[in-house]
């Protein structure tokens, strides 16, 4: 079936590298289609594109999955927070630093925060604290007050910057 007409059927995407066919027959948003396919790591915190919990990358672009029709994503490469794990399910430096810094409290916002941080580190290897804070400006975290998240992202960036350059481009 063709998902490109935006009205019915299914869409073919790759989620974290795996080819997946998502149901989109009822005009689902991307978050609905992903969660119906078992991708519960994509969180819905506000239903209105404000909190950033549903952040994913679509072909490398930071995307609000709750505002994006699934039908518009046919053929896209979608990255969720699980896409940060390496092939052996090892943690990404960002995930390790979030644990180290106590940057996840309830954790509900974290998939979206980590995707936003990952997106930042794709673009710059040595962000300032202000650049990190700006990168999180579309995320609401009600538990941490952001400070430990900013510290964690800064330390992850430092680690990745010292490591193989390819690590960042992955």
């Amino acid at each position: 079936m063709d998902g490109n007409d935006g009205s019915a059927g299914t869409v073919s995407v790759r989620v974290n590298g795996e080819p997946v066919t998502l149901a989109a027959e009822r005009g689902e948003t991307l978050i609905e289609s992903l969660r119906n396919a078992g991708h519960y790591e994509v969180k819905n915190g506000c239903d209105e594109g404000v909190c950033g919990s549903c952040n994913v990358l679509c072909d490398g672009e930071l995307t609000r999955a709750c505002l994006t029709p699934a039908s518009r994503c046919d053929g896209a490469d979608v990255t969720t927070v699980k896409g940060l794990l390496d092939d052996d399910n090892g943690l990404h430096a960002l995930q390790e630093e979030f644990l180290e810094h106590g940057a996840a409290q309830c954790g509900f916002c974290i998939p979206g925060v980590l995707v936003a941080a990952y997106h930042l580190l794709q673009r710059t290897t040595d962000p300032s604290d202000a650049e990190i804070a700006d990168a999180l400006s579309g995320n609401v975290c009600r538990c941490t007050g952001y400070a430990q998240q900013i510290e964690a992202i800064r330390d992850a960036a430092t680690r990745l910057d010292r490591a193989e350059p390819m690590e960042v481009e992955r």
Partner: protein
Amino acid sequence: MTSPDNAADAHAPVGESVEKVDGWGLVTGNARYTDDVPTENALAGHVLRSPHAHARIESIDTDTAEAIPGVRAVLTHEDVPAGRFTRTGFPYPAPAPFDERVLNETVRFVGEPVAAVAARTPEAAERAVDAIDVEYDVRKAVFDADAAMEPDAPTIHPDEYENEQDGADPERNVVCAARHEEGDLEAGFEEADAVVEREYETQVVQHLPLEVNTAIAWIDERERLTLRTTTQVSHICRDTIARAFDLNRTDVRVIKPRVGGGFGVRQDVLPVQFLAAALALETGEKVRLRNERSEDLHASQTRHAQDVTVKTGVRDDGTITAMHVDVTSNTGAYGCHGFAVLSNAAHEPMSLYPCENRLFTGRAVYTNVTPGGAMRGYGAVQGTFGIESHVDEVADAIGMDPVELRRHNLVQAGDESFEPEFSESKRRLESVGVGDCLDRVCDAVDWDDGPDEPDDERYQRGYGVALSMAKSGVPSSEFARAHVTLETDGTLTVRVGIGDTGQGSETVMAQIAAGVFGLDVDSVHVTADDTDATPWDNGAYASSTTYVSGNATEKAARDLAVQVRDLAAERFDVPADAIELVEGDLRLPSGESLSLGQFAEEAFIGEGGPKRRLTASGRHFTALSPKPFAAQLAVVDVDTETGEFEVVRLANAVDCGTAINPEGARGQVIGGAVMGLGQAVSEELSVDAEGVPEHRGLRDYEVIHAPDLPDLDVELVETHEPTGPFGAKSVGEVSVLGPAPAIANAVRDAVGVRIDDLPVTPAKVWAGMEGEP
């Protein structure tokens, strides 16, 4: 409880910043919250909400709705139990009027549930809600607490209800009234060289946990009602649901998976929980009911708006001779936490300055707005804003530095806290680090030198300080029990019914149990997510978990350690107290050692004696509630040409006793401070003249974002609380209290303008600079 002779064995991992025991799931997206399970076969729940602030439902026609294909149930007030209760999440009966039903015949705020639908698809459920025909008799509504007490105001709860609180006058919408005097107030004012009086107002804000309130309810294979839901009080939720539907406690089960924040809103049993339960009982099927964010913002409990009037008498030497704090608290449509929040509002902040003559008076008042509830700080945010703002005004009246005035009157170890008269708390304070906290934040900015002015003279810089005190549980109310088992591989299983909504309490319990045995945290598994698997615990509120549940966990672990030592003493014929538990090993006086796992396995096999399963239990119930303290200092730059201002720095020093997990405690301090910053400068929920919320959703609700952060300093000023687990007190709430008055005081210091109603906004600062009232 740690006695002095075993306090010395408070060893790692207590005091270490270990990673959260649930951390891997949180950072990988593998953590499962309420809605993160397949529900394709569940019925979709949907709620019809009142468009009116006050109306009696004359008739309600559900025939058309019920005829829509796929609709399985439409429930109205006619279909739910007639008995009234309170949603308030304290153990029964709770200090709150029994003034509500699952669905009420009279609706009392815009957004109150009128009917609930369960249908095969969300679309059918929405269509059914639209098809319900309600005829309302719209009544006069009132939104302001003072107006609600006027003779011409509508009576919001005219029918008699049970569990009326002291001082109630339902006809005048008064839920309760409080009066607590010590000494002789008038004599205290007569002694004073100056008497200063002012009123302060706080606004309505909401908790905004990132996961919206959600419930999935079903009838299990033993015909029991089961809820998987966003709660911070699983056992109280189970009890309250059972009472509301007249079920055996054992016929209700509550599963609390990962929960995306709470901050108090989930201390209450939520409308989505009652409604999902009602729909599951009606249909016999699984029902999923999830609020949208806008519903959560409009209709879930809020922080009470309060008017706080403070009158203080002071001598020229800075001695406070008398203080009267009067609080009017707007509790909204239902009484919920009206009484306890009102009482807390004054008692905690007044405790900081133990003057001989003091009086608290107050009342909580029904109005036609969303009910106030429990929210981090629990009244003390409002009272601390009033009192800590006022202390600066008092200092100004006698020409004294506000920090010096505070030091002159400050509570010390050995003083008594100002406890409510009904409180069974022992009043003597053992560990009081607030003076040190004040010194630390002042040293951080060289307070005595005053602020350097910004380079551009258009800007004025000010310093403001505020002190605060919170608690460690509700005395003589919190009850916790913990079971700890030594598994045959040397690990520990801890079963405890705490309500971790992200604050890290499962990690703290693991650290405490591990600390007793000299294990690492990875060797402890904490189960806290199911009322079927855990003993009673009041859950997460009143900053109780580390202190109360932590003490229960420590007692259980110590009892288990005694069992292990006794059994080993018998087996190896050595004195029990000569056996050490270190790094997962039993060390004998001979220098030999064997692993705990080997020991437990041999005990279970029955080597050298009867078969043993090594397990122990601990419980904690106490009349004590040790107080954590904080000092917070704001540095604010004000633009004298516009009134715009920036909080450039917020320094926080907190006395939480022993920090069992310092990085976790730091996270609590920062998280609370930033929530307090939002209360101070941006957050506000308001209604229009008809009581309709003026914000459409999260996009209109101004929370703090990462780029808004000031520089944040955090210092943990450790004291040792002799009654706490390894010396700990609580840390969850104390840092939310100070930012608002510290910022208001800094604005006053910068440009001489006192903002006495929250939030502090540029428009108000500008009006103040222009001399407008």
